[in-house]
Structure formats: C-alpha cells, structure tokens
C-alpha cells in the first residue's frame, strides 16, 4: 500500500491528495472498517454539496453499530462512489481503494496541515 500521498483524521477518515490538484479522495481506514465490522448501508452527501471540515457528511451503518462520516477538509462534493450503493461491503474489502466514499474539491488547501501522516495515524491507533 502506498501511503505517501495519504493523510488521516483522528476520526479514521483518510484523504488521498495530489500535489497538482485541489481534488482529494476520501475514505475510512482499514482499522476503522475492521472495527465497524460488516457494513450494510452507506449514506453519502449529494453531488455538489458543500461540506465543512469535521462536519458529519454521511452515515455508515454496520450490523453492530452506526458511525458518522466526517468531512476531513472543507469543500464541494464533486463525485460520490455510487458502487457503494449496491456493495457497501467494498469498504470492508478494500477500504483504501475500491471502498472510497467521495471526492472533494478543497476550498482551503491549508486544512491538509491539520491531518496526520500514516506513521502518526498508526501511532494513534497503537499499531506502529
């Protein structure tokens, strides 16, 4: 797994960024997916919605529990992963690739500075 262009929140979301673009991909970490267990339903924000950093922008329903999906950065939703509609289990199977949630066009790139790199995240979850 390539973690060089990935950053993490303390709420277990990840952001994959590109130095050339303001569009980031958002998902949840493998650790979070495992903790939630079997995911059966995902509610995502609508295309074009504006979200604020740390705002609950979606819902993740697992058999045993429910969790909010928080926006890791502020911006506009430019794409949602429609594959999750029929196959929410993709988040369990492939949290860093096929199980992504949304693409956001960042309104303030400097918000990335609030996020953790992979090493810091691994430290936080105690798996360094």
């Amino acid at each position: 797994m390539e973690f060089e262009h990935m950053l993490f929140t303390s709420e277990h979301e990840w952001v994959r960024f590109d130095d050339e673009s303001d569009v980031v991909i958002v998902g949840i970490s493998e650790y979070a997916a495992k903790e939630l267990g079997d995911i059966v339903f995902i509610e995502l924000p609508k295309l074009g919605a504006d979200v604020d950093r740390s705002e609950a922008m979606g819902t993740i329903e697992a058999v045993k529990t429910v969790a909010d999906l928080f926006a890791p950065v502020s911006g506009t939703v430019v794409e949602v992963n429609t594959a999750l509609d029929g196959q929410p289990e993709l988040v369990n199977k492939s949290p860093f690739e096929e199980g992504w949630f949304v693409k956001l066009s960042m309104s303030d790139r400097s918000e990335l500075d609030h996020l953790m790199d992979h090493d810091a995240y691994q430290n936080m979850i105690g798996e360094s």
Partner: protein
Amino acid sequence: MTELKKTPLHDAHVELGARMVPFAGFEMPVSYAGIIEEHRAVRQRVGVFDVSHMGEFILSGPGAFDYLNRVVTNDCSKLVDGGVLYTVMCRQDGTTVDDLLVCRMPGGQALVVVNASNIEKDFAHMRSLLPEDGTVTLEDASDRTALLAVQGPFSRDVLKSCPLFSPVKDTLDGLAYYNLFRYRIGGDEVVVSRTGYTGELGYEVFIPPARAREFWDELASHGKPFGLQPVGLAARDTLRFEASFCLYGHELDDNTTPLEAGLAWVVKLKKGGFVGRDALLAEKEAGPRRKLIGLELEERNIARQDYPIMHGVEVVGKVTSGTFSPTLEKSLAMAFVDRDRLDDAYSVQVRKKLVGATVTPLPFYPSRAK
C-alpha cells in the same frame, strides 16, 4: 470491575482470531470470519456456537416439577422424560424475570437453562420460592457445564460424523424437536437437546468442561466437509432476530410481561396457580397495554434498540431489536407499540432522520427447526 470469566473454549476462540468482547461477565467471541458470513453459514450449511456462558440449574427431589409448575408460566406437568419446554418465569405483577428452557431429565430431575446475564437473579428468585419442606433442591451447575450449539441444515450430519457421537447415531436420527437424550462417554455425562436459537435444524450439547475442547476440535475437523463455521454472538443475535425469538434485555425485561412480548402461547392460565397468574389473567382480560410488532423499513438504515416509533408527530413506541437481515436483505425491526396506536405504517426516528416503516408479520423468517 471483577475479572471476566472464560469459557472452557476461550483458547480455541483466540487461536481462531475471534474478536472477543465482554458479555454477561464472560469474555466471549462476538465474531470470527464476519457476522454476515457466519450468519449465512448457519442458514445454508452449519455453524457451531460456544454458549457455555448460559446458566444451568438442576432441580431434584420428588416435588421438583410441582414446584417448577408454580414458578414458570408454561405447563410442565405434561413434560415426559426427555421433553423440553420453552417458558418464562414472572413475578407476582406479571413482569418477566427471565425466559428459559425446562428439561425433564430421564430419572426425574429438571435441568433449567437460563440467560447468562440473569443467572444470579434467577437463582435468587427460584430459591425464594422453594418449598420449606425440603422436597426440592436447587443447584447452580453453570460452572461445571459447557454448552455448544450446532445449528444449520447439516447439523445432524456433522454430529453423526463426530467420533464422540458414534455410539448414539441412531438416537440422533430419532430425536424429535424439543426433546433430549443423555448418554455417557467414559465417566462423563453428555446431554444432547434438539433445540436452538437460530430457526434452523439444530442441537445443543451439554458437556463437562474438560471434554469441551475435544468436542470442539472434533466438530472442526469432521465439520469441514460440511462447511462448518464457528459463529459468534453477533450472528447468534441476527439469526435469532430473523426467526423473531425474544432476547432478554430487548423484547423481554424486568418491566415487560410475556403477553406484551407475544408469548401468550407459553402462558397457560388454565393450568392452576403459578407466580404472576392473577396479574397475567387481568392483563389478558383488559388487553396488554402494548404490542410487539414487526416492521420493514423503507430505507436501509438500521433501527436500533430504543429508537422511537412515530405515528405522525407522536411517539407511540420504541424499537426493541433491529438489523439489516442478511437472509431477507431488508432492514427489519421489532418494536413495542402502544395498543391504542396500532396501525399498518409508522416511521422510525433513526438518529436525525425519519424513516418510513410498514408492519410485517412475525416471524420474519419462518423456523425450519422442526
């Protein structure tokens, strides 16, 4: 916080990489391969559950069944040797102490199987009702009894292929639903009961703790050709939910009567006196103040315990259990609704959102256990 108890199969669960959680004072496996995979294994093939945390009481003495018939709501007087009965026991006011199985052992003893979380409460309740003349003795055998459930369409085939069961293959074939038999392996007594909590053909095997690992390992190796899967508490819950069996702490609790929970079929008001009879008779005549119903949600959000049931802008009930049914592939819930607000459709307050729900008959999944 006292230290969590371990079942005799604790090490086996850890070796399998199970996710372990505290439950009813025990460290228990909540899942192994994943809840939905385990759930489907039981519906389609066979699963094994360690339910050694359950409580077992032994009642002995000439008055044991007369006593039990005064303590529980169902009619134990018709039980023959080897017969098993599902029942509840109530307080004088009709509220439910626990739901339980009463087994009539060959020889006249009673084996009573209770919920792990209620062992101490049940024991105290039953002890307080013992006759003073000493004709009945009550013993808690929970710590010297391991309990494994083997459930699913291939459960009988798996048991018959285990060496521990080779002496009783024919008995297994002839064992009817809600019956048990007892046999000896060496000096150890094993009880096999055709009961379960999944809605599938299945067996529950009471075995001394020292034999539990041997049995578990036999099941693992001889169950492999049948696709046997170890199943944790989470899938045990989704399986019983689909079959719409009550779970104490959800559909039943200290403030709920069996009539409210749809268990009138285990309340035998005509059998003679029993604890709670007067209250339950009065409740039956007046009609229970709320009813347990089944709901199908219009969206795939999960209705979880205590989420409000809305009728227009009014709160008219609450969810007792809900999940996304792996078999029916729908979001379903059981809920209590006030009796004067019974209707065909409601909405469920799922966090900040109202989700429409239509009433659907219980059970969601008709049992195939018989």
